[in-house]
């Protein structure tokens, strides 16, 4: 039931991006009978085409268009053209994500109130509370089939989890389990159960992990109210003399420019592409970019305080077998400044295959110390740190002053430097992770630096006051009422949790608001 809308149809809602935010919003609006066109920069690759091979999959799915990384983070040196590891394909980064689906805690919506003013940080309370989002978290968990919610069983623990859990017990941690995962532990919603294949980051070839690619999008298409147009790379949003957006210009699969008219435009290209697009849409009326009267578009870029700890044991672990991230310790996810930092972090199981372990264990390292670590790959266990990082105005997605993409548009430069709070938190987490593995017999441990960012947040942040941020509590831009932001760039702060569940909850909530405002004739 593929629907095709005309380019000059100015009654459609145009959504830019088909990931957790855009794909969910598109389906929710279509279910309400609203006409939707999703423009997706990448191609449509169905789940049976995914590849169980790290580099081949990387080439198949990831966003490979030119970007730069700058600032004080180590990535700017190690991977100067790969600030982020995210996806350019229908389904966006929901093809690549690990599946961890956690709710923010109450205090994490009000960090300025709870943490107080912190030097160098641009903390702000969200204009919504946990109570506002709870009904939508419930809908999101049901939609995504999150384990340990809605009576869904947890996933079984794999080898990597067993080592992790044994270490957690030795350290006296209490709150650990195989996670709240949007991965089927049993058949549900027409999708099969996890087969413990590994390669969650390479796209789930069974469809057991929730992705908009094979849930929201086909469900939306089945209503006859949603068209997904792949290989459609939006380069500019246009507006009229009254300052309302009227449509978008995009490059089609052949590189030809097309103009799709729209009643409403929702930007959901993730926290790097969304601000880039708003900045690249500058006009004589909006010389600093669309929706940027606050000057906050692109600012406050967050990427979570991350890092990994890998450990070598005397005997085999085979950590790569089974679900990549089905393991979590939540004891450190609290605000306890006595640890030397505000905010908290989660520890989650993680593994890489040999090719990516070689690339990411200690980028640039060589010689016997490095090679001997890989020699023990079979005996390795691993975990990932996900902590709340401080929003800082200086950390920003900017337009590169010289470099242009294949369509002549300035590319994104991602400038990031850790806040001292981020460093203190990461060091604490490294110590805990290393102690955890040593408690169960690790002979060698590795505090591994952050990978290219998968949690990209905050660059069009939500604020009560138009002067503090880009969008209001519905994700509607303060400046232009028919322009919305529908992805993780809305996040005012990042909390200590993987962001996808919150992006989905916000998209469901935003769909209700858009439908209500359309019905009222306000937009």
């Amino acid at each position, binding site marked *: 039931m593929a629907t095709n809308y005309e380019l000059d149809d100015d009654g459609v809602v145009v959504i830019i991006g088909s990931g957790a935010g855009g794909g969910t919003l598109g389906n929710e609006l279509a279910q309400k009978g609203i006409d939707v066109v999703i423009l997706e920069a990448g191609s449509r690759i169905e789940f049976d085409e995914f590849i*169980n091979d790290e580099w081949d999959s990387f080439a198949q799915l990831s966003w490979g268009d030119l970007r730069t990384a700058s600032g004080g983070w180590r990535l700017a040196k190690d991977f100067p053209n790969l600030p982020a590891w995210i996806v350019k394909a229908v389904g966006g980064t929901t093809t690549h994500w690990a599946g961890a689906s956690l709710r923010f805690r109450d205090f994490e919506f009000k960090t300025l109130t709870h943490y107080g003013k912190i030097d160098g940080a641009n903390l702000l309370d969200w204009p919504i509370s946990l109570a506002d989002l709870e009904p939508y978290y419930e809908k999101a968990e049901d939609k995504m089939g999150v384990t340990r919610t809605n009576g869904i069983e947890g996933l*079984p623990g794999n080898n990597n989890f*067993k080592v992790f859990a044994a270490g957690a017990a030795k350290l006296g941690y209490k709150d650990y389990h195989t996670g709240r995962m949007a991965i089927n532990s049993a058949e549900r919603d027409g999708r099969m159960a996890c087969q413990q294949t590994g390669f969650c980051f390479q796209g789930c070839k069974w469809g057991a992990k929730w992705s908009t690619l094979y849930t929201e999008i086909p469900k939306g298409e089945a209503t006859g109210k949603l068209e997904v147009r792949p290989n459609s790379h939006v380069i500019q949003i246009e507006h009229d003399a009254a300052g309302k957006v009227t449509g978008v210009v995009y490059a089609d699969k052949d590189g030809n420019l097309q103009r799709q008219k729209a009643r409403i435009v929702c930007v959901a290209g993730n926290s790097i592409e969304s601000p880039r697009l708003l900045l690249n849409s500058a006009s004589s009326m909006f010389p600093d970019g669309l929706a940027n009267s606050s000057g906050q578009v692109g600012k406050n870029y967050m990427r979570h305080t991350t890092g990994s700890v890998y450990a070598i044991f005397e005997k085999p672990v085979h950590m790569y*077998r089974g679900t990549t991230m089905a393991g979590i310790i939540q004891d450190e996810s609290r605000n306890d400044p006595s640890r030397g930092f505000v905010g908290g972090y989660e520890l989650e199981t993680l593994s890489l295959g040999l*090719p990516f372990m070689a690339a990411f264990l200690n980028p640039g390292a060589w010689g*016997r110390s490095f090679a001997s670590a890989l020699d023990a790959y079979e005996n390795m266990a691993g975990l990932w740190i996900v902590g709340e990082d401080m929003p800082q105005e200086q950390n920003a997605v900017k337009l590169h002053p010289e470099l242009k993409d294949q369509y002549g548009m300035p590319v994104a430069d991602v400038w990031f430097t850790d806040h001292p709070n981020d460093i203190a938190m990461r060091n604490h987490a490294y110590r805990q992770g290393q102690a955890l593995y040593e408690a169960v017999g690790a002979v060698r441990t590795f505090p591994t630096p952050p990978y290219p960012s998968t949690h990209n947040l905050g660059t069009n942040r939500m604020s009560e006051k138009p002067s503090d941020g880009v969008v209001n509590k519905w994700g509607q831009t303060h400046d232009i009422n028919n322009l919305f932001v529908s992805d993780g760039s809305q996040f005012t702060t990042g909390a200590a949790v993987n962001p996808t569940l919150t992006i989905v909850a916000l998209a469901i909530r935003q769909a209700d608001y858009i439908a209500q405002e359309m019905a009222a004739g306000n937009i």
Partner: protein
Amino acid sequence: MATVYRHPGLSRRELLKGGAIGAALIITGTAVICPEGAWGLETQGLPPDTVATLIKMARDIYPHDRLPDRYYAIAIKGHDAKAAEDAAYKTLIEEGVADLNRRAGADGYRGLGWEEDRVAVLQQIEDTDFFQAIRSDLVVSLYNQKEVWPYFGYEGESYSKGGYINRGFDDIDWL
């Protein structure tokens, strides 16, 4: 009960006889040949002597004593092919290797008997474009060879085998 993994080419018999491990390379006018390992690499863009030095250098950068030389030879083949098509690249590699040999002394880089001595030379040049070109390529061209994965106990693709749900995803038995 843990699923036992067999490392290829590491049977007791092969270890005792030495096999291809550490076998001497023969340099001819157009090729690098390893008689004991039964492989040869016909060079296109670079002199065989340069290629032999790159193979040694590759092993010194990522030293895995259980890996035969042929995997390092495969890993550096791309530089030879690229040098055949790109004169500037050929110059980068040839001058880099010449510099390495100069720094190593009278017998050149391969003439240094101890790995530590060769590594000391590599450390002098590790910030150069030449070294970074070799190392950054090698981290993919060596570790992304499916044939080397079993030496590290990495099993690769698993979908076609039905994942690990019945093949040891939770078989750890020593905790």
